[in-house]
């Protein structure tokens, strides 16, 4: 191989697409846990989490308490950064590029432009190319995922329905994204233009996915995962890793449940392991039946 390929330069550069997307590659097969205090962050790290999401209230409490939900206090995020050695993520409101600037200035490792917080812009998501820090964004289908990637997202998570402890929406979104990708692969080249139009996504990205059969960034799952079996099911449905929000610290024995979900995510295809780690976990978080959740309280419909 020649050593004079064009990409070789003498300077070190930060914030390249490869560095941002590569960070998500390192999280694969892992569990990212919502935490609201340094103590919870330590519990998550000791249980084997690959990263923590620092926030002021877990989605279940955001749901219960209502009001406008915003970026967390920088002091609170600093406390969590100081407490653990693993990556720390934090949420900014959809479209709130200044919250994202603040999170980058604090030194968080990933920004989640999240529908769990109250959106700040009803037309535009954040221009994520403008940042050194990488972004993860939620999606309910392939078109939404590709629009976020076009805006610079370096990682995608299926949205699910956060704070419900009910995995049904996560299942729907994972199946939708994977199904959309499979359908693209079956199209011939002439049909990809219409597919791009239907998906409301850039043609180049659509053509790339039709060819490779996968997103150009890592795909995690989120929103309603509460048990080791939930996590393993999402992995079997094609997720490359798992976000667990309220599911851990709203349960009876967070440390034990956290470690069990980590193990089930690694051995997602081994029912014996999943059975073993599912024993004696105490109470799971109380779930919400989606049929009783009014449209106005659904978080997954935020963002477009």
């Amino acid at each position: 191989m020649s050593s004079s390929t064009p990409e070789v330069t003498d300077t070190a550069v930060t914030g390249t697409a490869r560095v941002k997307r590569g960070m998500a590659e390192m999280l694969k097969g892992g569990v990212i846990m919502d935490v609201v205090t340094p103590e919870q962050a330590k519990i998550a790290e000791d249980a084997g989490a690959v990263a923590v999401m620092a926030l002021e209230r877990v989605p279940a409490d955001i749901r219960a308490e209502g009001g406008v939900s915003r970026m967390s206090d920088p002091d609170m995020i600093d406390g969590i950064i100081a407490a653990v050695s693993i990556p720390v993520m934090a949420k900014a409101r959809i479209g709130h590029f200044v919250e994202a600037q603040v999170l980058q200035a604090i030194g968080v490792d990933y920004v989640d432009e999240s529908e769990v917080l109250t959106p700040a812009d009803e037309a535009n998501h954040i221009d994520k190319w403008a940042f050194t820090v990488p972004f993860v964004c939620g999606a309910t289908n392939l078109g939404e995922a590709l629009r976020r990637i076009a805006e610079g997202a370096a990682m995608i998570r299926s949205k699910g329905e956060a704070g419900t402890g009910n995995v049904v929406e996560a299942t729907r979104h994972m199946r939708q994204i994977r199904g959309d990708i499979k359908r693209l692969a079956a199209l011939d080249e002439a049909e990809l233009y219409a597919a791009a139009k239907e998906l409301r996504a850039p043609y180049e990205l659509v053509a790339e996915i039709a060819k490779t059969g996968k997103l150009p960034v890592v795909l995690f799952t989120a929103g309603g995962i509460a048990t080791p079996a939930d996590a393993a099911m999402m992995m079997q449905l094609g997720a490359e890793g798992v976000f667990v929000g309220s599911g851990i610290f709203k349960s009876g024995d967070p440390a034990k449940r956290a470690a069990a979900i980590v193990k089930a995510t690694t051995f997602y295809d081994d029912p014996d392991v999943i059975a073993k780690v599912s024993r004696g976990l105490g109470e799971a978080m109380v779930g919400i039946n989606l049929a009783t959740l009014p449209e106005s309280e659904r978080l997954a419909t935020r963002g477009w």
Partner: protein
Amino acid sequence: MTSAPTIGVLALQGDVREHARSLEAAGARAVTVRRPAELEAVDALVVPGGESTTMWKLAEAFELLEPLRLRVKSGMPTYGSCAGMIMLADRIEGGIEGQQTLGGLDMVVRRNAFGRQVDSFEASLDFAGRGLMRAVFIRAPWVESVGADVEVLGLAEPGDRIVAVRQGPLLATSFHPELTGDTRVHSYFVEMVREL
């Protein structure tokens, strides 16, 4: 060894698929390793990038830590990138309380030494005299110091830090050659496996 060697990728967590793809491109047969029986079936092992704390916890929980240590000690060729480098270090700085490694490489590695994700970077470096390559560093460790038997194979431009080392059958890099499609590091490792 004339036929393609079977090289395992430790698949507890991390960028397993990228390493497997690079190994195949370098002429090896790649398989994943999560259980002691799978470890016994491989000629050599790659410990991928990921979180070293997570890998340690899972290796311990699934009784893989001791078998891994035994194989490494008995001379199985092993390559670790980033978290894998930490796993192969005899001593680490910046680990969490009680954090254990497989060890084998006589060196001190500092975790997250290059900084947080906003400091993650790519740069060009010469690996083992095989020409310049683009190297991707993600919350990367560096080698603080090495013992007399450790050969330094690469330095990173910021601060001339040690980022690639070899000691006998053990190879480690702070960076991620599996992310760039440049297979020179994996080819070097496959050659090591064939020679040993």
